[in-house]
C-alpha cells in the first residue's frame, strides 16, 4: 500500500534510447545520389535505413520526389514498418508523379488480399489518399472486397476509403454502388464500423446536400442509437452529429430519442457532451412545454454545460460561445448559474471576454448586486480590452435591470474618479446610453462628466460627451463654451464626432437662441461649405433649411422625444440563432456565423432550421446563382448583429423622429438609410420658398448655393416633402381596401340591398356601405347594431341615413367604428354579425372585415424589441403560410404593406432571398411579428407569423394575401 503511491508516479519506460534523430543529420552534397544507391541495396536493413532517411528529408521539407521509382521499388516487402514508410512517401508525392504512381497499383491490389489484416487495412487506407484519377478505377475491386472483409478493422478502414474516393471521383463511387454498400454497413455488427460508415456518409451527404443519402428513418435511427452505447467516444460524436440532422415525426419520437441521448451528457469527453446538447436542444423544440419530460430535460442540461467550464481553455471557449447561443434560445436553462461565469484571474483573455458576455445576458434583479461587485472588480484590472468590456457591461446592467441603475451610475462615477483614461472614456459612452434609457434621472452627474472633457481622445467617447452636452444644454451653464472648444479642430474630428457636434450645437441653439447664433452659423458653414463628407453636408443643409423656414418645426424635429432604447442588446437574429443552434459545437457556433459565410462552395447548401419552426427551410433552396440574379442588391444584415450599441444609438439619434410632424407618417422614426433620399429631398428644399416666415430666418440668409445643376428639381413645399421622404424607404401607398360585396341581398332584406366593405382611413375604422332600395315603397328610420365580436368593434355613432330612401334610390353611407364594444370570440375570428333596422323590419347578416383595419399606425416595433419579442414568443405560436403568384419585389411589397400599417423593420438578403421583418399592432395592443421571404424570380412568398395570440395568424395571412395581390 505504501509503495503504491510511488508506483503511481512511475510511467512506462521504453527500451534503449535508439533515436531517429540521426536521420535528420545527413545533409551533404550528393545526398540524393547516395540515397538512391542505398535504396537499391540488396540488404534489407540498409534499404529500411535509406527509406527512413528519405522520409526524414521529406519531413523537413526537402524535395525527394526524384527518388520516386526507387522508393516504390521497396514497396514489396514483408516488413510492415518499411511498408508504412513507403506508403507515406507515396501519399506525399503521387500527385506530382502521376505516371509513376501507376507502378504502385499492383502492390495495392496484392496487399488488399494479404493474410494480415493490418496490411489489408493499410493498403486500403493509403489507396484512398492517392489523389490520382488514373489510379482510382483500379482501386474499385480491392475496395469492394475490403468493404466485405471478415475483419472489422479492415471494414472500418474501407468505409472511410469510400468517402475518400467520393472526394476524388463522386460519379465513380455512385456507379460502383459503393454508397449502397456503405449504407449497409450502418447495420454492421461492429460498432466501430457503424461509426465510420456514419461518418463517411455524413461527410458525403454534406458535400451533396440533395442526395438524400442519409435517408434517416426510424429504423436507421434505432440502429444508430444502439451503436451509440457501444462505440468509441469519437464514434459517438459522429453518430450524435448525424442524429442532429434528423427530424422526428412527432413529439413522442422526439422524446424517446432524447431519452436515449441524455446519458451521453455524462461522458468525460466534452465534444461528446456538446454534440449531445445539440441533439437535445434541437429535438426539444418539438416537445410540448407542458410535458413533464420537457422540464426534466431542461434541468438536465444545466449541470453538464457548467462542467464544460472546467475543461481545457480552448474547450471552455467553444463551450462559452455555445452557451451564449443557448442562453439566447432558452434563457431558463442557466438562469441560476451566474456564479460559474465569474472570471478567474488566470483565465485566458478569450475566456474572460466570453464569460463577461454571458454574465450580462444572465444579469437579473435577483443577482445584480453580485454581478455589479464582480464587474467593478474587473474594471480595475490591467487588461485594457477586458476592462473596457467590464465598464460597458456595467452600463448594460443599468439598462437591463432598472432597479440597479442608480448603483450602476454611482459605480461608473467611482470608476471615472480613477482617471484611468480608457476607463473614463468607456464610462462616458455607457452613461450616455443610461441617459437615453432613463431620461431626466441622472443628470446630476453631468458636472462630473464635464470635468473629464479634455481627456477624451476616442471618437466614440467624444461623440457621447457632445451628445450629452447638446441634449442637456439648458442645464449646463457653459454648454456653448464646451461645444465651441470642440469646434476648433472640427475638420480633424471623425465623422461620428462631426455629426454629433453639428446636432448638439443645433440643439443648443434651439434651447438658447439668443447667445448661440454665431456658434450655430459657424458649425453650419463648417458642415456644409467646408466639408467633403456628403452625410455631414446633407445634415447641415437640412438643419439650415429647417431653421430658416420653420423654427417651430425645427424644434419639434430636433428636440423631439427619442424612442427608448431596449434592454437586450447583441441579440442574434432569430433565424440565424436557430441555424446556429443546429450547428452547436462546430466552427459556425464559435464564429456565430452561418457556415455559408465562411465555407467555400457551401452557398447552395440548405440552411438548417429547428424542427419546431414549421420547416421554414423547405422553401429555401437557393440556387448558387442567387446573388447573380440581381434580386439581392442590398448587402445583408439590416438587423444589426450589433457589436456596437452606440452605432445604433447614434442612428436613432440622427433620426428626426417624425411623430410630431404635420402629417404624421406612420413610422415612428426614419432609419439612417433614409438620409440618402434627402439628396432628392434637398432639391425641393432649396428650390422651395426660401423666405419663410421665420422669426430667425433673417439671421441666416439663404442657404449657400450649391452646384445649381443638381438643384433643378421641381419646386414644392419644402418641409412637407422632407416628412414625406421620412415616411419610409418606399413611398407609402394607400391602404388596400377590398371591394364592396353584397352583405344583404334584396331577397332577404325585403327589398333592401346592402353591400359594403371596411376601410381604415386616417386612423379611423369605417364601415362603408351602399344601400339600395329595390322595393316599391320608401324606406326610413335606419339604425344599425353589432353583435359582440372578437375585437369589440362597435359603431361610433348612429347610422346616418338622413333622408328617406325612395324606391330605386342608392345611397352611400360611411359608418365610423370604434373598438370599445363588448368582446366575444367569433369564428372565424373576423366575423361580424350585424343587425340593420328600418321602417319595414329588422334584418340580420354577417360579414367579415379584413383584420388590417385593426392595424394601428404606431405598429412599428423597434428593432431590438422585435428581436427580443421574436425570441420570447414560443415557437408553438409560429405559423407559416405561402402566398402564391405574387410578382412584386421585396421593396414594392414592403411599401404596399406599409399602406396597411404593416411595417418593415428590417430587411436581410441571404443567397438571393430577401427576408423582411415586419410588425403590426392590433387595436387591442396585440403585436404580430412577421418574417416575409421573397425570392427573386420565385412568385411564391413564404410568410411566418409569430404572435402571442396565434389565433389571429390566419386572418393576418389573409390580409397579406389580399394586400399583396391587389
Amino acid at each position, binding site marked *: *500500500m505504501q509503495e*503504491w503511491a510511488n*508506483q503511481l508516479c512511475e510511467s512506462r519506460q521504453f527500451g534503449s534510447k535508439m*533515436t*531517429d534523430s540521426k*536521420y535528420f543529420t545527413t545533409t551533404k552534397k550528393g545526398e540524393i545520389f547516395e540515397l538512391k544507391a542505398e535504396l537499391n541495396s540488396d540488404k534489407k536493413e540498409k534499404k529500411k535505413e535509406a527509406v527512413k532517411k528519405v*522520409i526524414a528529408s521529406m*519531413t523537413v521539407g526537402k524535395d525527394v520526389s526524384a527518388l520516386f521509382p526507387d522508393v516504390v521499388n521497396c514497396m514489396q516487402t514483408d516488413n*510492415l*514498418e518499411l511498408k508504412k*514508410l513507403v506508403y507515406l512517401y507515396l501519399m506525399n508525392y503521387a*500527385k506530382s508523379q502521376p505516371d509513376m504512381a501507376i507502378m504502385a497499383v499492383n502492390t495495392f491490389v496484392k496487399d488488399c488480399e494479404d493474410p*494480415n489484416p*493490418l496490411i489489408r*487495412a493499410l493498403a486500403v487506407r493509403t489507396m484512398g489518399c492517392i489523389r490520382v484519377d488514373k489510379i482510382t478505377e483500379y482501386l474499385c475491386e480491392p475496395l469492394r472486397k475490403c468493404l466485405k472483409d471478415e*475483419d*472489422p*478493422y479492415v471494414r*472500418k478502414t474501407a468505409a*472511410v476509403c469510400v468517402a475518400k474516393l467520393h472526394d476524388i471521383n463522386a460519379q465513380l463511387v455512385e456507379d460502383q454502388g459503393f454508397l449502397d454498400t456503405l449504407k449497409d454497413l450502418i447495420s454492421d455488427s461492429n460498432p466501430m464500423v457503424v461509426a*465510420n460508415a456514419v461518418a463517411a456518409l455524413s461527410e458525403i451527404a454534406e458535400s451533396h446536400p440533395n442526395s438524400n443519402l442519409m435517408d434517416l428513418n426510424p429504423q436507421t435511427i434505432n440502429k444508430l442509437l444502439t451503436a451509440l452505447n457501444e*462505440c*468509441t*467516444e*469519437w464514434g459517438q*460524436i*459522429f453518430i450524435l452529429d448525424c442524429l442532429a440532422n434528423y427530424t422526428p415525426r412527432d413529439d413522442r419520437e422526439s422524446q424517446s430519442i432524447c431519452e*436515449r441521448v441524455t*446519458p*451521453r451528457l*455524462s*461522458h*468525460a*469527453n*466534452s*465534444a461528446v457532451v456538446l454534440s449531445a446538447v445539440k441533439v437535445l436542444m434541437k429535438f426539444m423544440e418539438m416537445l410540448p412545454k407542458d410535458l413533464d419530460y420537457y422540464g426534466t430535460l431542461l434541468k438536465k442540461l444545466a449541470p*453538464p454545460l*457548467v462542467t464544460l467550464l472546467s475543461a*481545457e481553455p*480552448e474547450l471552455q*471557449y*467553444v463551450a462559452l460561445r455555445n452557451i451564449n447561443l443557448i442562453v439566447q434560445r432558452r434563457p431558463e436553462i442557466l438562469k441560476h448559474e451566474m*456564479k460559474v461565469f*465569474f472570471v*478567474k*484571474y*488566470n483565465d485566458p*483573455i*478569450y475566456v474572460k471576454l466570453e464569460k463577461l458576455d454571458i454574465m450580462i445576458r444572465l444579469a437579473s434583479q435577483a443577482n445584480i448586486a453580485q454581478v455589479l461587485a464582480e464587474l467593478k472588480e474587473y474594471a480595475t*484590472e*490591467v*487588461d*485594457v*480590452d477586458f476592462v473596457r468590456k467590464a465598464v460597458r457591461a456595467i452600463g448594460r446592467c443599468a439598462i437591463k435591470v432598472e432597479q440597479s441603475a442608480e448603483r450602476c451610475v454611482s459605480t461608473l462615477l467611482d470608476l471615472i474618479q480613477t482617471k484611468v483614461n480608457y476607463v473614463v472614456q468607456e464610462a462616458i459612452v455607457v452613461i450616455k446610453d443610461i441617459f437615453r434609457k432613463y431620461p431626466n434621472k441622472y443628470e446630476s452627474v453631468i458636472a462630473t462628466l464635464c470635468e473629464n472633457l479634455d481627456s477624451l481622445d476616442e471618437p466614440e467617447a467624444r461623440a457621447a460627451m457632445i451628445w450629452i452636452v447638446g441634449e442637456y444644454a439648458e442645464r449646463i451653464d457653459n454648454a456653448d463654451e464646451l461645444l465651441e472648444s470642440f469646434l476648433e479642430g472640427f475638420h480633424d474630428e471623425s465623422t461620428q464626432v462631426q455629426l454629433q457636434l453639428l446636432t448638439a450645437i443645433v440643439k443648443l441653439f434651439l434651447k438658447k437662441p439668443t447667445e448661440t447664433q454665431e456658434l450655430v452659423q459657424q458649425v453650419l458653414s463648417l458642415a456644409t461649405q467646408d466639408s467633403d463628407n456628403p452625410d455631414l453636408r446633407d445634415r447641415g443643409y437640412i438643419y439650415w433649411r429647417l431653421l430658416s423656414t420653420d423654427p417651430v418645426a425645427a424644434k419639434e424635429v430636433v428636440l423631439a422625444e427619442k424612442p427608448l432604447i431596449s434592454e437586450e442588446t447583441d441579440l442574434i437574429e432569430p433565424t440565424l440563432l436557430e441555424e446556429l443552434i443546429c450547428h452547436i*459545437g*462546430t*466552427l459556425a457556433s*464559435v464564429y456565430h456565423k452561418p*457556415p455559408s459565410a465562411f*465555407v467555400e462552395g457551401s452557398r447552395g447548401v440548405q440552411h438548417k432550421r429547428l424542427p419546431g419552426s414549421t420547416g421554414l427551410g423547405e422553401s429555401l433552396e437557393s440556387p448558387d446563382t442567387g446573388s447573380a440574379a440581381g434580386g439581392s442588391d442590398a448587402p445583408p444584415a439590416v438587423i444589426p448583429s450589433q457589436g456596437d450599441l452606440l452605432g445604433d444609438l447614434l442612428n436613432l439619434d440622427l433620426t428626426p423622429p417624425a411623430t410630431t410632424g404635420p402629417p404624421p407618417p406612420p413610422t415612428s422614426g426614419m432609419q439612417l438609410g433614409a438620409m440618402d433620399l434627402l439628396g432628392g429631398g434637398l432639391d425641393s428644399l432649396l428650390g422651395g420658398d426660401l423666405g419663410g416666415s421665420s422669426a430667425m430666418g433673417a439671421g441666416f440668409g439663404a442657404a449657400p448655393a450649391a452646384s445649381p445643376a443638381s438643384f433643378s428639381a421641381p419646386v414644392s413645399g419644402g418641409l412637407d416633402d422632407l416628412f414625406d421622404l421620412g415616411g419610409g424607404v418606399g413611398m407609402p401607398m394607400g391602404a388596400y381596401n377590398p371591394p364592396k360585396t353584397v352583405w344583404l341581398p334584396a331577397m332577404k332584406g325585403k327589398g333592401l340591398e346592402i353591400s359594403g366593405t371596411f376601410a381604415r382611413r386616417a386612423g379611423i375604422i369605417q364601415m362603408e356601405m351602399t344601400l339600395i332600395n329595390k322595393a316599391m315603397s320608401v324606406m326610413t328610420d335606419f339604425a344599425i347594431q353589432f353583435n359582440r365580436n372578437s375585437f369589440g368593434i362597435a359603431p361610433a355613432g348612429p347610422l346616418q341615413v338622413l333622408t328617406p330612401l325612395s324606391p330605386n334610390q342608392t345611397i352611400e353611407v360611411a359608418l365610423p367604428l370604434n373598438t370599445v364594444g363588448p368582446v366575444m370570440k367569433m369564428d372565424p375570428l373576423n366575423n361580424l354579425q350585424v343587425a340593420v333596422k328600418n321602417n319595414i323590419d329588422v334584418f340580420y347578416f354577417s360579414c367579415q372585415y379584413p383584420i388590417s383595419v385593426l392595424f394601428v399606425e404606431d405598429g412599428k416595433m423597434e428593432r431590438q424589441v422585435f428581436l427580443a419579442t421574436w425570441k420570447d414568443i414560443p415557437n408553438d405560436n409560429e405559423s407559416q403560410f405561402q402566398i402564391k403568384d405574387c410578382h412584386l419585389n421585396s421593396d414594392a411589397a414592403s411599401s404596399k404593406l406599409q399602406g396597411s400599417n404593416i411595417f418593415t423593420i428590417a430587411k436581410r438578403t441571404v443567397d438571393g432571398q430577401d427576408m423582411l421583418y415586419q410588425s403590426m399592432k392590433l387595436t387591442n395592443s396585440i403585436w404580430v411579428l412577421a418574417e416575409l421571404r421573397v425570392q427573386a424570380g420565385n412568385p411564391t412568398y413564404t410568410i411566418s407569423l409569430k404572435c402571442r395570440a396565434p389565433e389571429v395568424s390566419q386572418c393576418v395571412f389573409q390580409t397579406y394575401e389580399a394586400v399583396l395581390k391587389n
Partner: protein
Amino acid sequence: SRQGGLSVLPKDTAAEFSVRSRDRTYVVLAGQVLICRNYKGDVDMAEIDHFMPLLMQHEEEGLVSPVISHGSVHFLWIKHSNLYLVATTNKNSNASLVYSFLYKIVEVFTEYFKELEEESIQDNFVVVYELLDELMDFGFPQTTDSKILQEYITQEGAKLEVAKSKVPTTVTNAVSWRSEGIKYKKNEVFIDVIESINVLVNANGSVMSSDIVGSIKLKTMLSGMPELRLGLNDRVLFALTGRDKGKTVVMEDVKFHQCVRLSRFESDRTISFIPPDGESELMSYRINTHVKPLIWIESVIEKFSHSRVEIMVKAKGQFKKQSVANNVEVRVPVPSDADSPKFKTSTGNAKYVPEKNLVVWTIKSFPGGKEFLMRAHFGLPSVENDEAEGKPPITVKFEIPYFTVSGIQVRYMKIIEKSGYQALPWVRYITQSGDYQLRTNV
C-alpha cells in the same frame, strides 16, 4: 520570414494536426513545420506558413483566440510546452471534437515518449507517423487509447515484428479499452477518491463561488475481463432504492470514463464497467454546495509608494481538529519591483520567488483549528515601475488525507470475473486545493 519568427519566439515550435477536411498535421520548429500529416489533401501545403505570423500579430494586439483564420482556412490550435499543435480545416468542422482530439494526441504522445517536445518528435518520427495514421483517418479520429495502440505500434518495431502482425481485437471491440488475456498473480484494485476545492473569495472576505470537483481514480491490477460495480453513497441512488440510512451526497454532474455503461447509470444509477488495465480516471463529479474554505486567509497588504510594502497574512485551518493539512503553500503576490525581503512566521518558512513575484509561505503540517501568522516586509524603489500591474489573488495549496469534504464514500466495489478469483479493493481519500483564490485589495 522564418528568421523574423525566430527572433520573436526563439524557442517556440508548432505542431499542426489537420482535422476534418483538407487537413494536415504540422509540427513547426522555430516557425518551421516539424512534422505534418495531411489527412485530406486539398489545401495548399503553404497555408500553415500563415499561422505563426498571424498568431504573433494577434498576441501583439492582445486578441489571442484559439481559432485563427486566414482566407478560407481555419487554424485551431493548442500549445504544449514548446510546441503548437495546429489543426487546419476549411469546412464547418466540429470544433470541440478538434480540440478534444488535439489534447488526446498530447496524451498519447506523452505516454509514448514521456515528454512531448521537439526532441521526442524528431527522435521518434517514424512512430509519430505511424501513430498519426492510426489516430485519425480522413479527418475522423479512430483509435486513441494509448494502451491499445501500444499493443501494435511500438518503438522497437524490428523486435516485435510478430506481435505487430495482427490487429488486436480490442481495436474494434465494443470493449475498446481493455485487452483480453491480462494476468496478475495477486488481483487488486486501488481506488483513489480525490476532491479538489475551488474557491473564489472577494477582497472583502465574502465567498463569491465555491465548489467541489471530485475524481475517482483506479489502478486496476486484475486478470481477465472482470465486471466491476462501484457503490457510492449517492443520494439519488438511495432515494431510488428506498434506503435512507447515513449521510448521502448529491452529485451535481457526473462524468464517466468510456468504460462505464452510461445508459445503465441513467436508468438505475448503477456504476458498472469493465475497467481499463492499470491507471485510469473512472469518473469525476461536481458538487455545488457552499464549502467553507478549509484554509481561511486574512491578509493586510499595505503599499507605501516609493518606500515599502508590508504584508500580514493569517491562515486558519477550518477543518476537523483530528485532520492535518499537508504541504500547505500560501502564495502572496508582491509588486514586481519589490526588493530586500524580510520575513517573520509563527510556523513554517517564507520564501521570496522573484521570478513569479510571489512570497511562498510553506507549512509542512497544518492541524485543523490552528491559526498561524506570517509577516513580510519589502522595500520599493524610489523610482517606481510605471507599468500597470494586475491584481493577482492569493492562492493556497494543500492536501488533507483520509478525508473528503463532501462526505462521499465508497460503499462497495464488487468484482466478478468468470474464473472466480477473489480480488481486494483498496480505497484512499484525499481532499486538496483546486482553484483556490482569494482576491486582495492591492
